[in-house]
């Protein structure tokens, strides 16, 4: 921090002078070896210049940290009361608040696919002689072909290994088998009170995802190198906005508003390579809601504890990028409870808030694992997907993290916004009775399969 020489005499107690120092012109060219140490603001005074100097010092320390673990440790070293943001929350209109905390734009529907990947319709039994384009990248075959033309199946025998089309019947039978096993065939005791989700939908989701992932790993080599976590922990800590400290010995000071997400997805898939971006880094697809109230009005409560940043495993793990998370809605937030309380419109809010908060925490933690943070913003977008379900209704979300700079200083000149795409919740089946599943919805299953098959373009 530069200080012009003449102000030294007016140092103590003349803070308004110290403010003009920061607007002073850059330091005059000094002789190469100055006899005096550089004149900078104090580091310990109760002044704005001193605060700025401390902040600068902290930023430099974090920038110069030797390893990612050291960086994370310094980033979360100072513990102060912070808002605990719960992705699964009963708060009304929580998704608007969460969007404003994380600077996220919500776009209904799913992101545009770069090439219509993996929605290979069930081909006819006899594979037709497709006009197989050369250079058999499997996706190129499906590119701008009308759906009524040859069944979009690249029948080239050059596509090593994988069967050319997805057998929707087999996928359906896998899903139905998992569902029937958990809900019908296995002899289980009655569910414990308020633990219905652990009794059937939880195990069903685990079974479904593990069998589907195993089935599809031939098609998606990224899945073959993936790591499946059961009930992992995902944490992220960040600052956004400013407030004045209300009471206590620090009363009156201007502090950043701190948030922490501690999330426990039911299941998550981590991969060693990053998913490709959906839209370019600087795209603007909508507006971020601005909320004039304090976060505590949501309601959101403050607590002081360890500032954790964790994606599900430590920095040393090679699978450091996220692919898909699966969240299970707990019993407290069941649909029936909202219907009984006359809050039908809040059902979708639950799914959206869960998707936005969990995915923001996961992608931001992944970005921090790569060395980015609020002062060193991301240079490439971080992309992850999530499926939020309560066992029967599935909602799909895709998230693209374009910026980590959410603190009061860095957000001013930052035009980038994070983007979240999401669908409404749709049922996978109607009812299970007598050993068969009625009303199975293939669309939802196909969407799940598309999510699992998502991979970088090179693979």
């Amino acid at each position, binding site marked *: 921090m530069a200080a012009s020489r003449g102000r030294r005499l007016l140092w103590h107690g003349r803070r308004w002078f110290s403010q003009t120092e920061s607007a002073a012109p850059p330091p005059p060219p000094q002789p190469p070896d100055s006899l005096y140490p550089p004149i900078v603001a104090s580091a310990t005074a109760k002044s704005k210049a001193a605060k700025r100097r401390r902040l600068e010092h902290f930023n430099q320390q974090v920038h110069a940290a030797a390893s990612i673990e050291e960086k994370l440790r310094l980033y979360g070293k100072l513990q102060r009361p912070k808002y605990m943001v719960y992705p699964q929350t009963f708060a009304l209109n929580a998704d608007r608040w969460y969007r404003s905390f994380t600077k996220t734009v919500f776009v209904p529907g799913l992101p545009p696919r770069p090439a219509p990947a993996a929605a290979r319709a069930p081909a006819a039994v006899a594979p037709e002689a497709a006009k197989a384009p050369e250079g058999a990248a499997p996706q190129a075959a499906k590119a701008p072909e009308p759906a009524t033309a040859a069944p979009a199946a690249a029948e080239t025998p050059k596509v090593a290994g994988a069967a050319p089309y997805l057998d929707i019947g087999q996928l359906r039978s896998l899903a139905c088998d998992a569902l029937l096993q958990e809900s019908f065939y296995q002899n289980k005791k009655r569910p414990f009170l308020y633990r219905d989700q652990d009794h059937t939908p939880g195990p069903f989701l685990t*079974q479904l995802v593990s069998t589907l*992932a*195993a089935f599809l790993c031939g098609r998606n080599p990224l899945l073959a190198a993936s790591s499946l976590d059961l009930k992992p922990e995902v944490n992220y800590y960040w600052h956004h906005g400013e407030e004045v400290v209300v009471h206590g010995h620090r009363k009156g000071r201007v502090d950043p508003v701190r948030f922490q997400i501690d999330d426990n997805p039911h299941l998550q898939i981590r991969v060693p390579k990053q998913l490709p971006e959906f839209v370019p880094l600087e795209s603007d697809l909508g507006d971020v809601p601005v909320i004039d109230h304090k976060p505590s009005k949501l309601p959101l409560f403050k607590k002081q504890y360890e500032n954790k940043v964790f994606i599900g495993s430590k920095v040393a793990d090679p699978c450091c990028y996220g692919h898909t998370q699966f969240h299970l809605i707990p019993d407290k937030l069941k649909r029936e409870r909202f219907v009984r309380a006359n809050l039908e419109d809040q059902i979708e809010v639950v799914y959206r808030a869960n998707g936005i908060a969990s995915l923001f925490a996961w992608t931001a933690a992944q970005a921090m694992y790569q060395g980015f943070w609020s002062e060193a913003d991301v240079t490439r977008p971080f992309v992850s997907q999530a499926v939020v379900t309560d066992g029967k209704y599935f909602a799909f979300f895709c998230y693209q993290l374009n910026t980590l700079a959410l603190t009061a200083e860095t957000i001013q000149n930052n035009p980038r916004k994070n983007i979240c795409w999401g669908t409404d919740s749709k049922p996978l089946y109607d009812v299970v009775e007598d*050993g068969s599943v009625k009303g199975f919805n293939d669309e939802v299953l196909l969407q799940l399969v598309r999510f699992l098959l998502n991979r970088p373009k090179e693979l």
Partner: protein
Amino acid sequence: FPQGVRQAQWLTKTKLVEGLPPPVLSIIDNPAHQLEDYEEGVKRAISHARFWDTTEVAPRREHYCPVLFEDLIHLCRLMAAKYPSLAKRMLARNYKISATWERESILLQVRGLNGILMNSMAPIPPVASKEEILATEEHALETFYPISPTIDLQEVNVYKELNDTGFRDGYPYAHPHTLFFLESANVRTNRFRPEQLRAKMLMFAFGNALAKAKVLYGNDPKVLEQPIVVQSIGTDGQLFQFMVFQLNTTDLVSSNGIKNLVWIDSDQNLYEKAQCVPEVKKRVVTKPAGIYGFQPDTFKKFLALYLHGTV
């Protein structure tokens, strides 16, 4: 089970064979399966379970034992790309088994939640040849007189002699394939010692096979035409016990006649030591962090038992 496997053998009328059976060994030795490619994946799985999976410095056994198991099963399941019939398997957690049988006028039963069961649509073909089965007839069961064979077993009054596989009729994955036992208690005294773990594995494998036999062939005691094979793997996160059990007969009242067979491969270490924090003596790092003594053969056996029946 103070006598361990010997006691379990007497109770289930079984003959013990050391080592794994020839069909499983042939899967391991078959170079076409390329079991070596998975070494990297296994090392990553061990590191993930033992080092990386937690925000603390070192995870406890309750945490890393199931995580290691899940990672190894995930690796095995990914082989479904090569062998499509592997997709016909389903894991069942928290399932309940009950099987009852009579052994020289003592009524015994096996019940309860035990471990994780993997079911398959197709049964495992019998492992032992007909001659071996007939040869068990001459084998005499070990008794440990004067200790009664039912020592240390809980005596309860049962009002219903139940035989239940744990699943309803019509379940597509009808045949029990492998049982997994995870000894994941933190305190060492709460865990089963290897000998007791093997005995427990034997009893539950027998219980599953017996329940299945009674469902398939009825309650009359008889020698089975098609022996039922159930495998079992037990671990405490580091040491693995492998077992293949073949049920040849449900005639268990007398101690003569055809016996059941079990092949046990015990105390296989997957790795010697997993150092979470580097060991430092007098400010010098004597042992850097990492996995020591990795044995790929143990995972090969795990995978071979998984693939058994479809390959």
